[in-house]
């Protein structure tokens, strides 16, 4: 018995030794290659001579080693490769986020340029202050509501600490309602990946907030604007953002009900622009039109902005920032299909181009001149519309989406002013609301099924495919997103701002509006050395009646 046991032990040892030899044979060449590379790497003396050609900098010498006695191992190289992937994605997401942040300057110039000179300081200040209001509210609670349950993003290292999504269970299916982790970015969310996603999502949120200031310009009480912006940054935007991007119920329409890939909004035609646009509509409805905008018979007067050059330069700044908005929404440039960033950037350019064409041609044909402000709005309309589908469509689809948006924005501006009788000084409701909704819808039509972001989107395998490419279910998911924007976001914003109107008042006094908001609200003129041109007679008459 003892002999048999000894024999068995010997056999087991022989097997183990042979396995060890195989393992050594597998790792051996790799280790040998690493040693050869280390031997061939430039010495400190060579590096001290300088590297004008860049051929010696960045070698095996730069790979951090876990054990200096052993030198560089395969494990060290693998760790460095993983960190490089995350580093590339961090840098990509941060830099594109910085571009989006700069869009605030574009919005400020467009909105102030389209307003009268007597309100320039007030309009610029709203666009400036909304950044602080939004950021504060988002850091406080908004980010937690939106992204508190958004764990699982491999591009940014997993974001494992964002694991708290409040779920509702219906008929055996689970629906995310709001996130719960990340208030003040404290606790476990004090994490490098979370900081990156916070910055990126924050600048998107702020874009939505600044849309509202355009529709309510020249008559919005500054204090009420601040409170309204904080509430929007804390609740309205984050709720819809969670449903679409934070693991919420809209994104689960595909995995739970088989509706395509669920609601798909690549960079935010719905989440950012339509949320901003429908909130702008709600505020504009509550606040009412500017004095002199509409006559007693309901006809409207054109109130011309003071600086078309600021408007057009602002539009270009926005178009530049959009290269952060759309390609940045991959949240990475390395792995998981992220090399599609080139297609997304070209789609973005093209839609802006065809949007401009659409608006210019429409105005030229119907009004006889290529209206400059509508040309700018056409560019923005194309960019807004391509924001949701930019990650899923080809260049032909992008061009068509932009062209339709460019014409649509002209119709919408006329409809909002002449039929709805809503005063929107900059066309924000049409550019961001109408064209944002069109962008959401267009995903369900034009998505070509070629994108592949890691093999799945919203937890559903395969590529997002629209009606024109064979999947009618995706369109249903997009329509549900539109219905939510109107049925929930508009109503929620309306009630919130209505309460504010009752409590503190949304609108400045008629006297302040007639004088211009720069002095009464801000205490300083935007252009103190300007001599103001007298207002048109229809305005002076209306202003006299309003202040009488």
């Amino acid at each position: 018995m003892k002999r048999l046991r000894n024999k068995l032990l010997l056999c087991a040892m022989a097997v183990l030794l042979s396995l060890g030899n195989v393992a050594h044979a597998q790792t051996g060449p790799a280790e040998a290659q690493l040693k050869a590379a280390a031997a061939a790497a430039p010495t400190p003396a060579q590096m001290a001579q300088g590297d004008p050609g860049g051929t010696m900098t960045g070698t095996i010498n730069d790979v951090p080693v876990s054990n200096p006695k052993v030198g560089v191992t395969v494990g060290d190289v693998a760790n460095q490769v993983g960190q490089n992937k995350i580093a590339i994605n961090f840098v990509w997401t941060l830099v594109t986020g910085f571009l989006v942040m700069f869009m605030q300057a574009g919005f400020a110039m467009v909105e102030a340029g389209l307003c009268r000179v007597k309100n320039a300081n007030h309009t610029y200040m709203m666009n400036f202050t909304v950044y602080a209001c939004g950021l504060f509210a988002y850091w406080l609670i908004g980010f937690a509501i939106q992204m508190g349950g958004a764990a699982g993003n491999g591009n940014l290292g997993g974001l494992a600490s964002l694991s708290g999504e409040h779920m509702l269970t219906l008929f055996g299916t689970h629906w995310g309602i709001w996130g719960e982790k990340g208030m003040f970015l404290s606790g476990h969310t004090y994490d490098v990946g979370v900081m990156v996603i916070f910055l990126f999502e924050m600048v998107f949120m702020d874009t939505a907030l600044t849309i509202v200031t355009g529709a309510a310009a020249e008559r919005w009480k500054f204090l009420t604007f601040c409170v309204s912006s904080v509430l929007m940054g804390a609740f309205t935007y984050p709720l819809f953002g969670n449903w679409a991007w934070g693991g919420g119920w809209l994104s689960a329409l595909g995995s739970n009900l088989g509706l395509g890939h669920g609601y798909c909004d690549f960079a935010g035609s719905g989440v950012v622009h339509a949320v901003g646009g429908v909130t702008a509509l709600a505020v504009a409805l509550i606040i009412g039109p500017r004095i002199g905008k509409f006559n007693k018979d309901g006809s409207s007067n054109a109130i011309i902005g003071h600086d078309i050059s600021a408007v057009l330069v602002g539009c270009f700044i926005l178009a530049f920032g959009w290269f952060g908005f759309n390609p940045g929404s991959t949240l990475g440039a390395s792995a998981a299909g992220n090399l599609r960033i080139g297609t997304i950037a070209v789609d973005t350019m093209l839609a802006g181009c065809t949007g401009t064409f659409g608006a210019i041609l429409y105005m030229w044909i119907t009004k006889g001149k290529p209206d400059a402000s509508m040309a700018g709005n056409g560019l923005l309309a194309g960019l807004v519309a391509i924001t949701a589908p930019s990650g899923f469509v080809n260049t032909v689809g992008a061009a068509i989406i932009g062209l339709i948006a460019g014409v649509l924005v002209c119709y919408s501006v006329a409809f909002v002013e002449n039929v709805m009788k809503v005063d929107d000084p900059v066309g924000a409701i049409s550019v961001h609301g109408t064209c944002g909704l069109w962008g959401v819808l267009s995903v369900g039509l034009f998505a070509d099924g070629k994108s592949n972001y890691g093999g799945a989107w919203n937890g559903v395998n395969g590529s997002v495919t629209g009606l024109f490419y064979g999947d009618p279910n995706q369109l249903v998911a997009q329509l549900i997103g539109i219905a939510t924007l109107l049925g929930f976001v508009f109503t929620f914003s309306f009630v919130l701002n209505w309460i504010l109107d009752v409590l503190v008042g949304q609108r400045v006094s008629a006297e302040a509006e007639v004088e211009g908001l720069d002095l009464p609200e801000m205490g300083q003129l935007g252009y103190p050395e300007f001599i103001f041109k007298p207002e048109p007679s229809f305005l002076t008459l209306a202003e006299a009646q309003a202040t009488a």
Partner: protein
Amino acid sequence: MSGMTTLTLQTRLAGLALLVAGWIVLLFSIVLLSTPVLRYVFVIAGLLVELLGLAMVGLHHRSETGGRA
């Protein structure tokens, strides 16, 4: 607010109620119905109810704006 009559206030409230109602109809329909055609029909119906609500809110606004010179 000060010039808002009971009728216009009711129009506004009814419009907001229709907006929410259309949304809820649509949400329940996609969960309860499994046929794609029926889902399409109810989604469109829900959207139409919402647009009716939006029109009523806008109607209230128009009635106020017409008198503001």
